[in-house]
């Protein structure tokens, strides 16, 4: 019942604790490091909460897999480059079926890129980063309060789906301070679904294709296909319970803007002129939900901090062409958005852009 000034990264950490997390392993990386720092401070006064600063992100993600198997709701936080290092283990977690949460506070890539600038270029990485086929569940909040709320949902979905669930954020949102009353956010917490290690079973947790008794099934295509569809269908069914999105702004407008994370807030001055579809569950995509909404609009514009990662997805979902405003190089500003809209001839009357502006847009 107390309103407080809370930072996005801080809200993620508080959400994790609320969800019952008792193990964090991580490696410092901007712009996610506040989550690691929060975890270390929390551990100092909460002996039931275990904290390990690792030697790298590969150790971090493998540690949370181990911590989860041992019985603790476990999580790590990183940014794009660190998330790249974690990819092999993400696939392992999907194969073995280990609930855990990976927070990716996005910056501008590729490579070391722009460590303190906001980007949204990790969408494909959260879906296709690891080897093989698997079903990712990914959420991307938009406010500090939502950082708290959807972190809890991420832990819940991880338990239900028995897989690593990704919570996306960005440098803008992670470092944003907003007044929020987190105590008012009430998300029921899902209990652990995986029997902790050494309670009497003799299970083999293996990334290798195996039969239920642990024998290798490395040349049995039928068994592989059976297991693959079983886990895909199970995770897809879980994801359906978490079909979060927002349909708002001026719903009667002719054009639908699709944007997510911090971007719709940056684009807020455009609210009278456009409808907004804001996916919160980024993966699996909200095909059914968008298919209901999209036909009402003559045009669709995807405004995002990458060169079309989500626009490509929307075209695939709807089988229709969409307009694009890519916000590149960390330039996630209303100035860049209006310039981008002008560039594609979609700038609402009443908005003027400075044609002589040196600002480059994608």
């Amino acid at each position, binding site marked *: 019942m107390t309103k407080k000034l809370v930072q996005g990264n801080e809200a993620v950490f508080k959400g994790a604790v609320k969800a019952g997390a008792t193990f964090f392993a991580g490696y410092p990386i901007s712009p996610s490091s506040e989550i690691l720092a929060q975890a270390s401070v929390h551990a*100092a006064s909460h002996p039931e909460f275990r904290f390990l600063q690792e030697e790298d992100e590969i150790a971090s993600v493998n540690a949370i897999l181990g911590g989860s198997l041992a019985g603790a709701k476990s999580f790590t936080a990183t940014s794009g480059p660190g998330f790249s290092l974690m990819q092999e283990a993400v696939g392992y977690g999907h194969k073995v079926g280990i609930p855990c949460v990976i927070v990716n506070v996005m910056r501008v890539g590729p490579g070391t890129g722009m460590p303190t600038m906001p980007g949204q270029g990790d969408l494909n990485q959260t879906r296709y980063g690891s080897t093989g086929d698997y079903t990712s569940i990914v959420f991307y909040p938009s406010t500090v309060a939502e950082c708290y709320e959807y972190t809890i949902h991420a832990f819940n979905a991880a338990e239900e789906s028995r897989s690593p669930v990704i919570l996306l954020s960005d440098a803008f949102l992670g470092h944003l301070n907003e007044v929020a009353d987190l105590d008012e956010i009430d998300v029921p917490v899902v209990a652990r679904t995986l029997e902790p290690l050494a309670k009497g*079973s003799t*299970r*083999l947790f293996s990334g290798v294709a195996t039969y239920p008794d*642990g024998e290798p099934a490395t040349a049995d295509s039928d068994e592989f296909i059976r297991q693959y569809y079983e886990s895909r269908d199970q995770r897809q069914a879980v994801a359906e319970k978490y079909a979060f999105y927002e349909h708002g702004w001026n719903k009667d407008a002719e054009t639908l803007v699709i944007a997510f994370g911090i971007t719709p807030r940056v684009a807020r001055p455009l609210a009278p002129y456009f409808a907004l579809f804001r996916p919160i569950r980024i993966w699996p995509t909200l095909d059914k939900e968008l298919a209901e909404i999209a036909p009402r609009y003559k045009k669709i514009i995807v405004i995002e901090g990458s060169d079309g990662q989500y626009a490509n997805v929307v075209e695939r979902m709807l089988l229709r062409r969409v307009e694009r405003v890519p916000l590149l190089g960390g330039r996630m500003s209303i100035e860049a958005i209006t310039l981008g809209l002008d560039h594609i001839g979609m700038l609402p009357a009443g908005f003027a852009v400075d044609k002589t502006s040196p600002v480059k847009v994608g």
Partner: protein
Amino acid sequence: MAVKDKLKTDLFPTIWCPGCGIGLIMQQLASVMDDLGLDKTNTVLITGIGCTGRMGAYMNFESVYTLHGRTLPVAEAIKMVRPELNVIVVSGDGDTASIGGNHLLHSIRRNSNITVICNNNEIYGLTGGQAGPTTPKGTTTISSPAGTTYSPVNLQGIVASNPNSFYAKTTVYHQGPMKKAIKEAIQWPGFAFVDVASQCIENNGRRIGFASANDMLQNYRTEYKAAPPGSKHLERHQLGIVKGEPLPVGASAKNGNGSGE
């Protein structure tokens, strides 16, 4: 209880080649587990990729067959979350010293209270016999046709970089010393590493001139000698245990950055 209760004998025969040394390690590990009262409620096995990694599947314990090189982060996290468990890592030299080398440095630095049994066959066996981090200089392998260029990694030196750690060198021929080393390693309060020389006849031994697995075992018999009592450092082909200053139990499992200090 008996030794055989530690094993899933219904899954035998194992996938290991005839003459492989890994089964000799599993046998002694099972024997030690029986002696120490280790069972599925107080002990977990963490194994890495490579032939050695299959050991977890054949033992009557909860077992995590990790990604290649990632035994130690998984094991250390399990020990941190469940300090009451015995956490035993069994993995090969390639998994431990090459792809997992960075984790080895840091698990040792943190004095994580886990036991590592390293099946050291000086080769990448499962992938067909490529040179590995422990392959002796000059060895002909399928990835070093003119002989390996570099000296092997100094496992003893890496382990000894933490003054509170435990290092043992043994061979699969020397069953008594191997059992003693494994037992003391599990009982050691802190990071313990058992470096077990073990033959790979199929993908190494024959290429370097051994006619049979028995020839390799006989080579261990003649080449390896017990280190003098009280040795603080083992020379090449010396059997023995080098112990640092033991830290109180639990010191390595406390919160913070995992430091044992």
